[in-house]
């Protein structure tokens, strides 16, 4: 059974086009490596950068190991609080990926449900959902995320907020992204719902809910996957932006964006490692995910086959 499945995958067009491009394979490997690194961060890091008690101010602003004054204790140097940059980047990567994934999944589920309902049911439901989407599209995503974050921050005490900061980010970024999913799914649904197989399903008396989920949904998933991959990169960047602006994760639990923000202040003073390493990590991650997204879009586009 498993072998059969594997064979089916290896035989598919998708796999063929995947192996054909070295860039895509490279991007996939890099993405995978970063994922694994984030996953096993507690075991491969040298310090717990999220434990303020473990940081020694006296070790702050140490250079990387290959520069005079650097030690193997902090291979990539330390930031202004004495955080080991290498460990901080691993932990920061965790935040970025967790927020990115959860936000995209949240946006995808919400967008698919609303898009399906809108496209399949039509009428009043369609009008209401699409007008809400139109209105939301007039705001930049970052503004919506800022707004939601600001409101939650306002009603909660700082200690409570610190505990849920990641979920607030997921919620705010997710809510700023659902429209794209909803619109795409709605468009596809409008096309699919008049095809024979859907009409046949309707004739045998299946309820609308089942038709939408079992029959229409699998046929609209292609474009959704493409949007999801590209939006993953966008979500990671949005999280970094929010943290850079100081409204993301708490400063004592830095994500890549927070680290870049800290390092930004030291860029001119020669302590470049505080901003450069998190910056490079962020760039590589987003580039790799974007390359995968691009490839997926081309591979799934029948017109390009």
């Amino acid at each position: 059974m498993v072998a059969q499945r594997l064979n089916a995958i290896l035989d598919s067009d998708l796999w063929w086009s995947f192996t054909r491009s070295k860039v895509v394979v490279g991007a996939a490997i890099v993405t995978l490596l970063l994922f694994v690194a984030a996953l096993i961060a507690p075991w491969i890091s040298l310090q717990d950068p999220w434990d303020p008690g473990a940081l020694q101010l006296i070790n702050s602003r140490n250079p990387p190991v290959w520069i005079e004054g650097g030690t193997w204790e902090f291979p990539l140097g330390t930031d202004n609080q004495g955080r080991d940059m290498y460990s901080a980047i691993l932990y920061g990567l965790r935040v970025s990926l967790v927020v990115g994934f959860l936000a995209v999944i949240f946006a995808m589920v919400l967008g698919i449900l609303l898009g399906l309902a809108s496209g399949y049911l039509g009428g009043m439901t369609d009008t209401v959902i699409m007008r809400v989407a139109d209105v939301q599209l007039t705001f930049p995503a970052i503004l919506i995320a800022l707004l939601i974050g600001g409101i939650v921050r306002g009603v909660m005490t700082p200690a409570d907020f610190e505990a849920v900061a990641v979920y607030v980010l997921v919620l705010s970024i997710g809510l700023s992204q659902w429209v794209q999913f909803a619109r795409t799914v709605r468009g596809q649904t409008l096309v699919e719902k008049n095809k024979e197989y859907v009409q046949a399903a309707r004739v045998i008396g299946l309820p609308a809910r089942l038709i939408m989920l079992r029959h229409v949904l699998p046929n609209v998933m292609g474009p959704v996957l493409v949007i999801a991959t590209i939006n993953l990169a966008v979500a990671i960047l949005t999280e970094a932006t929010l943290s850079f602006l100081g409204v993301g994760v708490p400063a004592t639990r830095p994500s890549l964006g927070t680290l870049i923000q800290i390092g930004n202040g030291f860029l001119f003073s020669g302590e470049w490692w505080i901003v450069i390493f998190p910056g490079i990590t962020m760039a590589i991650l987003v580039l790799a995910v974007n390359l995968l997204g691009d490839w997926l879009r081309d591979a799934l586009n029948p017109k390009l086959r």
Partner: protein
Amino acid sequence: MDMRSVLKTGACAAVLAMAAGGALAQEKVLRWSSQGDAFSMDPYVRNESLTLGVMSNVYEGLTRRDTKTLEIQPGLAIKWEQQEPTRWRFWLRQGVKFHDGRPFTADDVVFSFNRVKVGASDLKTRVAGIKEAKKVDDFTVDFITDVPNPIIHYEWDTWYILSASWAKENHALETVDVTKTTPNFASTSANGTGAYLLTYREADVRTEFAVNPAWWDAEGKKKFNVTKVIYRPIKNPATAVAALLSGQIDVVEPVPVQDIDRINKSGQAKVQIGPELRTIFLGMDTDRNELVYSDVKGKNPFKDKRVRQAFYQAIDIEAIKTKIMRGLSVPSAMMIGDGVNGYDKSIKRLAYDPAAAKKLLTDAGYPNGFSVTLDCPNDRYVNDEAICQAVVGMLARIGVKVTLNAQSKTIIFPFYAAKRDTSFYMLGWTPGSVDSWNVLYNIVGSVKKDSQGRIVRGLFNYGAWSSPQLDDLTDKILVETDKAKRDAMISQAWKLHIDDIGHLPLHQQALAWGVRNNVSVVVSPFNRYDWSRVMVK
């Protein structure tokens, strides 16, 4: 809206034309930048160094303080005397003219006295305890106080005098808070007696000033040669430093401590460092029976002096000095810095000793520590957020879990004041009077309200630490005229505060102004921008 409305007053234009066509053939422009803008052009709108500092070039008070020595000098008043215990007489300078040509008289002083007490004025404390200002003749004014007050004029260098008839004609009888309502004429225009006149105002972007050729101070005129000042707020310090080095700006304040080396090595500019009188400290809620932002329920750990001492001794102030402030801070054992009357350099900080701190915490009944939120501005003081983060780490090592709530000054300061329920906070304070009484009354005095429910004493004592004995002394210090007796009481009051560890003083930060090589400035311990002491080559 076109902010050039100032120029509409014909007199102003005439003065400018004279300046342009007169002896000042060569224009000397000074381009000045700071992190924020003056809140408004109304000099009573905010009790804040930056707004008062910018406006000190346009408006003047009855007294003034030397930029460098802070010594009180005659300003718009030439002399003053406490003629009776509760009556002060001020003799005004004659022949002074406002920028639009109106003569300065006692009516303007009486008007300014009444104006600073009402509306959205944030400087009400300047005339607190004064019943009335009485015009004796055109150049003499009496001030009647509730109780004898020997230091009535100590902060009058920043209580600026407006023209009564100008304010009346332009319907600017009261100060308005520009964040809450429409600006009035005085919010966007200015008509003072100072060395500079306002020529252009675009809030948060650019404000321009031209030299006032009719300034009364002939001696003062020799101390500067600037003819035009362009003031530009640049929010990001790194951008400001880049602008300084590329020659787009002449003076930048503040320079981030990490960029000082780079500027000095550039050959384009130098960083001038001076001590600031501002003391940065941490305060704790010692008043409530249960902290609002903590996991300790039913009691308040900060009421126990041992806990406060544990916090004190857990803070490694030398590490903060060398690593975060890069040497540019003076660790302080007192709530005032060297230079403020009442400072005693023989008082030493409690030693940094985490083991002792841990033991104190255990003795107080918190062997496993507790959790509390530290509120902290992140764009007000030098490296404020970095200091708070370091404190979080240091307290973590004695088992206290601190949640850091670091936010912009525009959020955190209103938060302090709104409910006054912060459990643990950072604040900095410069006593404008250069005297301990100001701090004893505003920062460490017990919170006391007047009959209308407005807080008078302890307005900035957000943790409400209280010592009735200290309040008693503070009241006596205010009315005591004998210097030796007064100083003895001040030192007694500080001893009470230090022995009880009312607040945790951290340090006095150093000022760092980035100045291009062709410019010379005088760095003021008040961090006040004095453009009448600037020479441009």
